[in-house]
């Protein structure tokens, strides 16, 4: 036994290792990505990046049915994609233990919405555990496998950003080697069609009853009595905030299992305390349960539905205490994230701005193209929506096709863009789709994907040929451009927008941060030639600034991509 300072996600991966997990399949998504990256460092576990979360969940189910301990991980919006297999996996149940981790993002540090995944546990009727720190991440992961096998159903592990991305001391143990369970042909269990599903639904409801009984007494839910004037019912990291804010001024019921929720345990705790608070980020999930069993609790009447909680929020709401602080009496400019120096997306977005195109965007680094000064994205909904929503836009008014495009990254295209492109080909809209192929999954921190030619371990793998794929589904017009070449890129966009049939442009250039990418020497501004017209600043490159009437290039950031050189009418930027 030893203790180590582990990231929450790293501790989940360690839990997978120690639990004897055999198969891990995931799609990257902040804040869940590192679970699978760390899992892949253990040779005892087969780990992979799947094309999307639905596939990952089905891979895990297949492995479980084959008798393995299996896992899939995703961010909250990924669970929307994986929901279809998950709801029916609740009916079939498992053979080997199956655990699905979902990481919610209260405060939306890196997400497009703030949905609360606990509703999925209730809707799919599956048990959900929620750790509060890295040590619990490891222990709950192992426990989740045991409970999955005990009750014969998948178990969901719910994380939030602050648990997934915080480091705390974690106790490590050895791996327990698990033998594959025997698979026996059993259609009434594994073939879900009405005749077999009807009895299965009865089993599911009975399972929830036994799981609820389990939660009434198991040590996963814990009670700590101090001063009983205030009683706090909480889970996950909110327990830490409450403990920090209230210390021994309150008593605590910490729910390690957030679905199903016990009734007697909560009612007994409530009976001991004078005033009850349910402290939970996002939706009133535990609060509604408390109200359903007739308890008078404070929850969203005093706490917000939005964003992250903290010790100071709790101290303010419950104790009326606020900390003093100073602030600077100067105006402080914001510092939004930007496309990196040398980012291949920059040239493409500049060309789109020149074309005054309406751009249906997607999820990835390139979403930053919506910000000043490029301001080249008009809509962003979810993974894959760029292509299908462009098709809808163009069907609503065929005139739109002359100035509207979709932009989508290589990994996002594989995730859920292909089906939209098939829709465009099949239902023939004169849509122009641009794949921003930067040879990596960028935003989540450089994961390989089916287009990169490497697997999760960096070993050679089959690469999807996007050009051939487009041809195969019926897109005849496919053009590949280098987004560092502004003229070539703009000409291609201009031509394809005017064309009266479906077309695909592949804007191809590897992410400038990839280690194997060789950079040119940094560029310099010739002060004599520079007229201070600021044309080079229209592309929002973080390496270019303006001092004393001239442009200046920061040699530590510039990678010599040459996009700014093409904008300078006075030939002032060069080697």
């Amino acid at each position, binding site marked *: 036994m030893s203790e180590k300072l582990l990231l929450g996600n790293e501790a989940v991966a360690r839990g997978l290792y120690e639990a004897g997990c055999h198969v891990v399949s995931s799609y990257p998504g902040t804040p869940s990505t590192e679970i699978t990256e760390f899992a892949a460092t253990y040779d005892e576990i087969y780990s992979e990046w799947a094309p999307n979360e639905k596939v990952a969940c089905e891979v895990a189910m297949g492995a479980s049915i084959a008798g393995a301990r299996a896992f899939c991980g995703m961010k909250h919006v990924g669970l929307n994609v994986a929901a279809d297999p998950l709801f029916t996996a609740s009916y079939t149940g498992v053979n080997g233990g199956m655990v699905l981790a979902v990481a919610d993002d209260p405060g939306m540090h*890196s997400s497009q919405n703030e949905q609360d995944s606990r509703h999925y546990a209730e809707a799919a009727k599956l048990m959900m555990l929620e750790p509060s720190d890295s040590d619990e991440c490891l222990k709950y992961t192992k426990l989740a496998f045991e409970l999955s096998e005990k009750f014969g159903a998948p178990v969901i592990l719910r994380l939030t950003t*602050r648990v997934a*991305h*915080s480091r705390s001391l974690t106790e490590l143990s050895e791996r327990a080697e698990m033998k594959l369970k025997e698979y026996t042909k059993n259609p009434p269990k594994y073939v879900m069609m009405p005749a077999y599903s009807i009895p299965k639904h009865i089993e599911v409801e009975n399972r929830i009853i036994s799981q609820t009984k389990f939660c009434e007494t198991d040590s996963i839910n814990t009670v700590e009595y101090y001063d009983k004037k205030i009683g706090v019912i909480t889970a996950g990291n909110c327990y830490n905030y409450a403990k920090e804010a209230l210390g021994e001024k309150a008593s605590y019921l910490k729910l390690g299992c957030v679905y199903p929720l016990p009734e007697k345990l909560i009612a007994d705790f409530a009976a001991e305390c004078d005033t009850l608070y349910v402290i939970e980020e996002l939706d009133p999930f535990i609060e509604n349960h408390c109200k359903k069993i007739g308890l008078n609790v404070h929850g969203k009447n005093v706490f917000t539905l939005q964003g992250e909680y903290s010790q100071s929020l709790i101290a303010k709401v419950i104790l009326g205490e606020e900390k003093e*602080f100073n602030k600077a009496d100067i105006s402080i*400019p914001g*510092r939004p994230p930007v496309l990196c120096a040398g980012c291949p997306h920059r040239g493409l977005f500049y060309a789109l701005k020149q074309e005054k195109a309406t751009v249906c965007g997607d999820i990835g680094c390139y979403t930053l193209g919506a910000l000043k000064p490029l301001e080249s994205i008009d809509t962003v909904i979810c993974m894959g929506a760029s292509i299908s929503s462009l098709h809808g836009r163009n069907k609503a008014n065929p005139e739109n096709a002359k100035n509207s495009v979709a932009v989508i990254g290589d990994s996002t295209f594989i995730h859920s863009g292909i089906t939209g492109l098939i829709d465009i080909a099949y239902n023939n809209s004169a849509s122009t789709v641009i794949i921003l192929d930067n040879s990596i999954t960028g935003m989540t921190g450089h994961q390989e994907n089916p287009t990169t030619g490497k697997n999760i371990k960096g070993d050679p793998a089959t690469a999807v040929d996007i050009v051939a794929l487009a041809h195969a589904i019926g897109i005849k017009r496919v053009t590949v451009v280098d987004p560092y070449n502004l003229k070539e890129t703009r000409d291609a966009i201009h031509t394809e927008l005017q064309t009266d049939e479906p077309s695909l442009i592949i804007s191809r250039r590897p992410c400038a941060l990839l280690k194997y990418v060789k950079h040119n020497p940094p560029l310099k501004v010739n002060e004599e030639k520079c007229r201070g017209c600021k044309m080079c600043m229209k592309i929002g490159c973080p390496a270019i600034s303006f001092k004393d009437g001239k442009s200046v290039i920061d040699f530590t950031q510039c990678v010599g991509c040459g996009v700014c050189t093409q904008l300078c009418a006075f030939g002032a930027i060069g080697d």
Partner: protein
Amino acid sequence: MNTYSVMIVGVGGQGTLLASRLLGNAVISEGYDVKVSEVHGMSQRGGSVITYVRFGEKVYSPIIEKGEADLILAFELLEAARYLPYLKKGGKIIVNTQKIDPMPVVTGNTVYPDSVREELQKKADVTALDALSLAVEAGSPKAVNVVLMGVAAKHMNFKADIWKKVIEETVPPKFKELNLKAFEMGYAFN
């Protein structure tokens, strides 16, 4: 001891994550409980980046709120001013005087305020230093983070030996010497 709270703030790409990891491992060597909170993803793309390190006998919350930080270690001047409200009354700011223009300044929509350092000094106990020059002197501009950790380690009264051991264990072997030198320069800064 009460929980000691350190906020490390800077611009994505400056190495704040490594700094927080070094601090986390160093305080463990001293026998403390610790929590380190990082933000990954969107904010790493040149945006404003914050990590929290909290240590003591038993640490619950991984985050730091307004009026709670004992020490703010700022890798960039403007970022120190942005997070000044998080400083506890009587807390300390160690700031690198390097200025990095944020995009709204680059695009000319606003200006980088010129009296940041003076404003900070009016409101708090500040140690300001040109850590970039020290890092360059140590061998690489990328060692700014370790120079600043050296200054912070001295301020927190940590012995240099523990830190050197943690640096040796945390950074890749080929950068070991550079980082040890950078740390020593920061630790010796007065």
